[in-house]
């Protein structure tokens, strides 16, 4: 009887909406996705636009790194430390059927985040090097620029796959969380 009253008075009956991604995190995420998409598809290589978009991507990652120091709880490095050990542990518990929900990135997703940031930085730096006299036309720089971009595309595909898989597994709509900022956690799920 008590719980019944509580349920009605709490309005949204079954799920808990928790704010996790602040607007800056969301804007940076989608802007970065856009720069990768633009430079990887319609923008011509070696054009001025390609350079400018590349620097924008660098700035976005730089901004996000600063935000990871001074931003709110879920955006901070401490919320998703790069730890392969934790990722493996997470994989094991996941396979064992644990369905608890991580509010920030889950340990496996955290590794992907760092991987993508580092790739973007590597692409940006080699891209800049190609515009300098010292490194212009140097083969390994160009090769690295392209190889890392290939790796980034592969990572993005894995990232999207991971999001789809985790949305299916945990029941938390992750794409929507990255748009509205709120994770809607199904009732009775442990939150980490």
């Amino acid at each position, binding site marked *: 009887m008590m719980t019944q*009253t509580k349920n009605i008075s709490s309005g949204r009956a079954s799920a808990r909406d928790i704010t996790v991604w*602040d607007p*800056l995190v969301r804007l940076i995420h989608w802007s970065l996705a856009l720069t990768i998409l633009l430079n990887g598809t319609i923008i011509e290589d070696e054009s001025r636009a390609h350079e400018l978009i590349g*620097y924008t991507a660098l*700035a976005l990652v730089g*901004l996000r790194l600063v935000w990871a120091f001074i*931003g*709110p709880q879920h955006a901070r490095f401490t919320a998703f430390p790069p730890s392969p050990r934790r990722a493996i542990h997470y994989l094991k518990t996941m396979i064992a059927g644990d369905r608890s929900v991580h509010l920030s990135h889950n340990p496996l997703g955290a590794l992907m985040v760092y991987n993508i940031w580092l790739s973007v930085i590597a692409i940006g730096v080699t891209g800049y090097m190609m515009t300098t006299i010292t490194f212009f036309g140097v083969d390994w720089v160009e090769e690295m620029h392209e190889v890392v971009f290939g790796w980034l595309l592969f990572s993005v595909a894995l990232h999207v796959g991971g999001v789809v898989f985790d949305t299916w597994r945990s029941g938390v709509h992750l794409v929507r969380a990255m748009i*509205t900022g709120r994770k809607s956690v199904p009732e009775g799920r442990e939150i980490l």
Partner: protein
Amino acid sequence: MKAKFWPARTEERRATILAGLILLQAVCALFFTVDVIEDYRHDGQLDGPHMILESIAAVALIGGVIFLMVELRRLLQRMAVMQTGLEVARGNLADVIDAFFEEWQLTNAERDVALMILKGFDNEAIAGLRHTAAGTVRAQATNIYAKSATDGRAQFISLFMEELLAGDIGTVASHAEDTSKKGPTKEGSSPVG
């Protein structure tokens, strides 16, 4: 499943706008910085009014970005505190309502109806939601008003408003003690602690 990016609440909107400004300004800062570096690479000198002006602009923009980020952080913190307060208040209000219902010895059905009245539904809507006849709801509502010694919907609702607005902190505190004494003993009577 509607995904709403543009938030309805003012503070959230401010946070979004602030974040957008940070992003734009960071990109501007980057371009000024890149420009300064490129000019330097071409001319090899840092003096000259053009360079000085551009350098100042770059530094100002970067400083602005960091300042705005700190501001956004503050705003987000304030919003979080407000949200917590709201949740505590909600929990408290639910407890107060429960205590009243207990005191008036409402039946389960009457509790449901009373709660819906408080939420602003009219009798017909309540009948629809509860899959009962409108006459039944009317009878239940009459019972509720009788048990709570009010003369109708408006006075019934104002009873709770009055409770929320009543007196200074001292009287609110003493009242809270009061209800926890005479109200049903339950775990949720002091949600703050």
